[in-house]
């Protein structure tokens, strides 16, 4: 089985007038068909940047990104993206129109079919009552949910999600996670998922990539079955193992 997405030695940099920031350094990983691939790493380590590069918004200064054997050069609806920012909804469209517009222009669906689908997913994120509201009338978490609905409704080859559940409360978050897994059970799509929460990574991910602090480099890649499995070698639960790995250098410092 060859990789669906192949990220090979990717270095990403931001060039500004007076700074040059290296966001990630020679990162490689492979995402297979139907993977639920999680990127985990400390704030500022380059997760969003990596996702943007896969989305086609940034060109690596080194290395290549290939999707289905073709090099990624520009954005497209085959890689649907859920951004981290709250302003990712089109302010001039209502909740329903936002989801529908993605479907009609991204997935080239007919208006009728798009409307039906849009309403279905809006219901899944519990926003049916707000289907006709404009984004500026929603709370932070509600905006995030619309973006999630939009991403899921597109049913793309690969779904790129950047901390989609960060703004959600415990209950809503659990519901959304379940919805995502449910959808995956149904359609077996591929998802590349950024999160800050280790339990979430363990619950959602089938494979977890750990990144080092800024600039991000690959630290480890682990498997997960969603059950916080116990590692046979060390006897630690996966969550704990990850925690150890991420916090390793810091533990003493925190305890100072």
């Amino acid at each position: 089985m060859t990789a669906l997405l192949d990220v090979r030695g990717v270095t990403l940099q931001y060039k500004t007038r007076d700074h040059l920031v290296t966001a990630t350094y020679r990162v490689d990983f492979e995402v297979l068909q139907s993977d639920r691939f999680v990127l985990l790493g400390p704030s500022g380590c380059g997760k969003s940047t990596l996702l943007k590069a896969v989305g086609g918004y940034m060109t690596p200064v080194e290395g290549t990104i290939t999707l289905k054997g073709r090099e990624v050069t520009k954005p497209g609806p085959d890689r649907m993206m859920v951004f981290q920012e709250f302003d990712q909804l089109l302010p001039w469209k209502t909740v329903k129109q936002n989801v529908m517009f993605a479907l009609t222009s991204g997935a080239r669906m007919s208006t009728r079919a798009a409307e039906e689908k849009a309403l279905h997913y809006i219901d899944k994120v519990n926003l049916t009552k707000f289907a006709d509201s404009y984004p500026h009338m929603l709370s932070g978490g509600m905006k995030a949910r619309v973006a999630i609905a939009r991403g899921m409704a597109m049913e793309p080859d690969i779904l790129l999600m950047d901390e989609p559940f960060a703004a959600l409360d415990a209950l809503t978050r659990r519901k959304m996670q379940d919805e995502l897994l449910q959808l995956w059970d149904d359609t077996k799509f591929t998802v590349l998922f950024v999160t800050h929460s280790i339990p979430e990574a363990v619950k959602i991910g089938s494979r977890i990539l750990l990144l080092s602090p800024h600039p991000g480099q690959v630290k480890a890649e682990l498997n997960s079955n969603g059950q916080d499995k116990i590692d046979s070698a060390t006897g630690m639960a996966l969550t704990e193992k990850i925690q150890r790995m991420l916090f390793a250098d810091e533990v003493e410092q925190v305890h100072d």
Partner: protein
Amino acid sequence: MTERPEFVRELATDNAFGVVQKPLTTFERIWNQGYVRKAAILVVLALVWELYARWVNNELVFPTFLATVDAFWDGIRTGGILQRAGHSIRILLQGYAIGLLIAAIFTGLAISTRFGQDLLETLTSMFNPLPAIALLPLALIWFGLGTGSLIFVLVHSVLWAVALNTHSGFKSVSNTLRMVGKNYGLSGLGYVTKILIPAAFPSILTGLKIGWAFAWRTLIAAELVFGVSSGSGGLGWFIFEKKNQLEIPSVFAGLFCVIIIGLLVENLIFRTIEARTVRRWGMQT
């Protein structure tokens, strides 16, 4: 410090959430209507005009408001001021529309290629400061005398202002929205019309307003210089003619007509557009 007690409450039922309003006084309620406030401003302005003109007391230079309204009324009944205005508006709309079209093409180019952006920036900084008179020779070569040349000059006065505003609006569109648009696979015209234009709408609207105003200015001034043949002639010509005959109240009546059209367009058209778009979308307060 005694520990505060914990507690758990029953919730009110859904139908309890009525609208609770603090009552307003009648004056507040009336004053809250935008058109009332604006009407008040207009009345004050008219009053100031009337009083100042009476104080200046020079009908040949600055007639009173009432004399102007009189002349305006007269102009409507006998002088065909409305036909003149109609004539001007017709030409104006043509020039405006063509100007917008060309501005759209330029900014479209400018946003999609770096070369287009350089081109727009260079052309704008070169041609925008040129007065209409500078275009006269080219206008005469290309369009001869008459409406063609007038429209050409109008386009010049609309084009750059609208293009500048639109382009700057486009450049200010948030990166996230751009990325969302690209994500849908939009590019070229679709990207511009479906993402950039609505996202930059506040700027574009300002450009439209400025373009509209400068089109009027230019038209009125240009009708005096350019190929007016005596059969036709719009409001600008009306003003010029009356000025030469020293019928100053009529001159002001002509300008008054421009003012009224300006107020109508702003309050009926631009306000409505604003309310239905940027205000509704929460893009402007």
